[in-house]
């Protein structure tokens, strides 16, 4: 039973993943990621 469900879960997760990436990018999350990543992350290096 579990073996029969697994390929369905794999396919569904791929679809969900692509949908979430597109939805997130559309609402501006990719810009937020870029804005954070191109500035020096003070918390990461131990200053902030």
């Amino acid at each position, binding site marked *: 039973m579990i073996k029969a469900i697994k390929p369905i879960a794999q396919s569904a997760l791929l679809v969900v993943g692509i949908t979430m990436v597109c939805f997130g990018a559309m609402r501006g*999350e990719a810009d*937020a990621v870029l804005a954070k990543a191109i500035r020096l992350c003070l918390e990461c*290096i*131990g*200053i902030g």
Partner: protein
Amino acid sequence: MDKRKNPASHRLSRLRGWVQAAATLLTNVHLPNFVKGGIYQGAGKTVCVPGLNCYSCPAASGACPIGSFQAVVGSSKFNFSYYVTGTLILIGVLLGRFVCGFLCPFGWLQELLHKIPGKKLSTKQLKPLRYVKYAVLLLAVVLLPALVVSDTGMGDPFFCKYVCPQGVLEGAIPLAVVNTGIRSALGRLFTWKLIILVTVVVLSVLFYRPFCKWICPLGAWYALMNKVSLLGMQVDRRTCVSCGRCARACEMDVDVTRSPDHAECIRCGKCISVCPVDAVRFRYGFSLPSKQPSQPCEDK
């Protein structure tokens, strides 16, 4: 000509060190920035890299998925990141913990440290510590940045700020070497993170991949995805002679014959190399129901 039954799997596990080196270089391709003392600021940083790699590393070519998730969740505009979560789901389904075994720069560093000659300790008695990384993922990455916010609605990236040693190793140290401004600004938080880094380095010499096993939230995520990953291990139970060599060789303390999709399996392929009858191999694709028996190999 390779006469083994699964030459592609053998070749992949044999080339793992080279793949790790190449992945680390591709993840940190802007090497001249180490001399310039700045970080890469191009559009490539919109994309999350698969492994744990600080985006404040001068050479970093992409964004750290854990840092990006916290940055989005901790911003005043969003309280969840579909973009980063979707990316992690995709990478998780396509590769699972193969990322840890082949593509993560920090995993590779720990492996190199473990090659330093000296006393080595087993982690078999420390298996309960594996669950700590799930708590780190839930608390330091997901909940605290979203729930503990300032008056302006901004949350701290708790994992990056208080736990992650990659920022100090890849960001603070190389930047402080060439940039006096950064060097003079380093304070107690840097000291705390440096202590964590030194601890991880020392533990990595003694234990195999302690950060991956016990702390890494990215490893925890990919561990959860290992069960549904398209890339996995396959044991031919008709060929297996139950010699136990694979389980003894596994430094992640996994018995691949009992659980080929185990959450801790980083797909390093050591079990493939040591199998005397070539019963273990990598598999890739959708897990269609097979006619093979699902129970563990029986003693012969």
